[in-house]
């Protein structure tokens, strides 16, 4: 009824192959975007910005990046935290070295620096696969965090090793620093995430994305039909690291404003993003968003219900929240091993057939 192909005729290949071929889904998407861009900024406050929406966008960006590498190209990576750190420190160094450079450009350049570092650490992927590659990327994680903690140049020789984001503006409005209005930081992150999700979606549908998927599905067969493993794997590492670097830059400059490497970019960050990708759905753009939403919003929601709503002691609520989130992860993985994105896909299939399923 709501979700039908009937009557939705296509007269060109472009129309037939668009991302949302069904009209109602297209409307749903654009409706959501209109709300996100034009309605939310008028209602957002500090709490929603710093605890809900900006974290959601930053983690979505990181999950998108990892999904390109792990979901589309099949290369398992545990180096996400380290690559986010590269993005954050590149952002910090660029911000302090070139105070007049626009923050938008700084963030993009930080992504570029991370892409380069990611390519270097992606080189071993040509020789090693699977668990062994995971261990090699784990080395990247520990090495990078150690490096940023060890070499004072990266944190401008400050006494504590913390890096703090100075205030930077776009069109005269602060987007980093403490006095940035919530709507500005939100819109800044949303614009970047929207833009790069769009690019990711189209990359994965084109030649490059197809070569990644060919490598993922069977690398020898892909090589035989003419996909260059070097090009495919290194490009996957580069693109993925670019996204993760942008996420790291936003994480540091817009969301937190001050970080120290061991706490903010530890191995737990790598696992968190990997869980987001697995729970959301490997090889799915929507899945990256769903996974990020599940793992960032659920704890905040549970905390507000248990402490704010029911008045439980905070420690009991914190322990219960850990158990509940863990339980839900197990539940979803048992019910739908392909992630939340697959649930959405199934729901759409059912809707198409409704009310006459066969």
């Amino acid at each position, binding site marked *: 009824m709501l979700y039908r192909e009937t009557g939705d005729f296509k007269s060109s290949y472009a129309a037939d192959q668009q991302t949302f071929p069904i009209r109602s889904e297209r409307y749903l998407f654009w409706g959501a975007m209109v709300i996100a861009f034009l309605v939310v900024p008028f209602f957002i406050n*500090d709490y929603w910005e710093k*605890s809900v929406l900006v974290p959601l966008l930053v983690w979505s960006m990181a999950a998108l990046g990892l999904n390109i590498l792990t979901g589309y190209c099949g290369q398992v990576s545990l180096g996400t935290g380290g690559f986010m750190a590269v993005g954050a420190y590149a952002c910090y160094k660029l911000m302090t070295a070139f105070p007049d450079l626009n923050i938008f450009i700084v963030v993009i350049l930080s992504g570029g620096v991370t892409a380069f570092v990611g390519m270097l650490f992606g080189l071993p992927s040509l020789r090693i696969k699977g668990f062994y590659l995971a261990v090699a990327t784990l080395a990247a994680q520990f090495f990078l965090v150690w490096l940023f903690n060890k070499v004072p140049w990266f944190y401008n020789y400050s*006494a504590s090793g913390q890096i*703090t984001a*100075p205030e930077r503006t776009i069109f005269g409005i602060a987007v980093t620093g403490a006095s940035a209005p919530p709507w500005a930081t939100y819109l800044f992150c949303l614009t970047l995430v929207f833009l790069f999700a769009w690019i990711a979606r189209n990359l994965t549908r084109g030649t490059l994305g197809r070569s990644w998927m060919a490598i993922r599905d069977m690398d020898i067969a892909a090589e035989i039909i003419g996909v260059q493993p070097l090009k495919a794997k290194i490009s996957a590492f580069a693109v993925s690291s670019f996204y993760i670097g942008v996420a790291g830059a936003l994480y540091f400059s817009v969301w937190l404003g*001050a970080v120290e490497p061991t706490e903010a970019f530890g191995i737990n960050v790598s696992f968190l993003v990997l869980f987001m990708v697995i729970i959301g759905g490997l090889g799915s753009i929507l899945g990256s968003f769903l996974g990020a939403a599940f793992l960032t919003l659920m704890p905040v929601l549970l905390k507000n219900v248990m402490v704010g709503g029911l008045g439980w002691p*905070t420690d009991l609520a914190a322990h219960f929240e850990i158990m509940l989130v863990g339980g839900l992860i197990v539940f979803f993985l048992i019910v739908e091993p392909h992630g939340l994105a697959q649930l959405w896909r199934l729901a759409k299939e059912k809707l198409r057939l409704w009310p006459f399923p066969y």
Partner: protein
Amino acid sequence: MKLSKLAMVTVAAAMVGGTPALADLVFPSLSYRTGPYAAGGIPFADGYADYFTLLNERDGGINGVEARVLECETGYNTQKGVECYESTKGEGSLLYQPLSTGITYQLIPKATADGIPVHSMGYGRTSAANGKIFSHVFNYPGTYWDAASIIVNHILDENGGDVKGKKIALVYHNSAYGKEPIRTLEELAKKHGYELTLIPVDHPGQEQKSQWLQIRRERPDYVLMWGWGVMNQVAIKEAANIRFPMENFIGVWWSASENDVLPAGEGANGYKAVTFHGVGSDFPVFDDIKKHVVDTGKAAGAGDQIGTVLYNRGLYAAMLAAEAARTAQALHNTKDLTPAQMRDGMEALKIDAARLEELGLPGFGPEINVSCENHGGPGLGAIQQWNASDGTWTLINDFGPADRAVIDPLIMEDSLAFAKENNIPERCN
């Protein structure tokens, strides 16, 4: 058991039901009763909550206005800390005690922009002691740099004022917190001519074999420690294992609780640490806590932490906050405070020996005199020593000063660099 506790709590919550009185003084407590550092977080949070409960029960609040402690669990995690800050600041929160270096660094710019004072008591950013630059951040009664200098002073005392050629090693948590004292210790090394070895321990510090092997090889005369959580216990156990003389092993005030020394048993006997407040429960205020808080069943947490080092620190933090609120009430001639008024109260806070006596805490801490320029307090500290057979800490000297000639220029340098990076004009002119 979990279920029955849960059910009880739900019933209790349902019974209490109604919201607390609106006109009250809100003191958020960003506690961490869970996670790897919970052993340190629980006593502090209990002490902080119990003191306010005592004021409410015994005196009916602060000058008749009830204090409300708003607890929020951070798990010592910076992101959760930010979430806690954002979710509680709208409730009229007067003062934040971030209780973690990471969260402090987050809150310094945020709280300053929101006009809410932050009290990072003996932690956080040392150079925030310069009130000319940091308008809303206070770290009285002492900073890490004071602590480092007081420890070196103690070593100087023990060696008749001459430590030339002595070797001092610093075992530190490899994070912003652990790195804080390095600059000061390096400066002091130049001045006094000792040799400084830096030995970092990565979070969480459960494995320190290589660090203590290095200590065994290099045989330093003294080992200083900037540790937190499980790292402290492991370090003290390792030191006992290599038979390092415990009286030459001196920790900062966060490496100085019962949790840290008890696991090493007899081996920890003689371990020293610097402190900025008194130890034990031999103060009149504890009788009041027993009568008004514990016996009425209103103690926070399990109520089994009373008199431990970190409980006392939480209590002391709450006392300073309450006194600052009192000062603010007098200053602005009002009973209900805004965060801005609370900030003024903190900046005008004066606590002398007579006031401590009145509060039932005679000699518990040094005299405090906060001013517009100096948010770091007197910077006095004493050395406490562990007696393993009695299971008690004792202060072995008086609250003594740090080497201001070394520390003040460092504070100036670091705070001015921060001001320059962030375009902050100087105040107090």
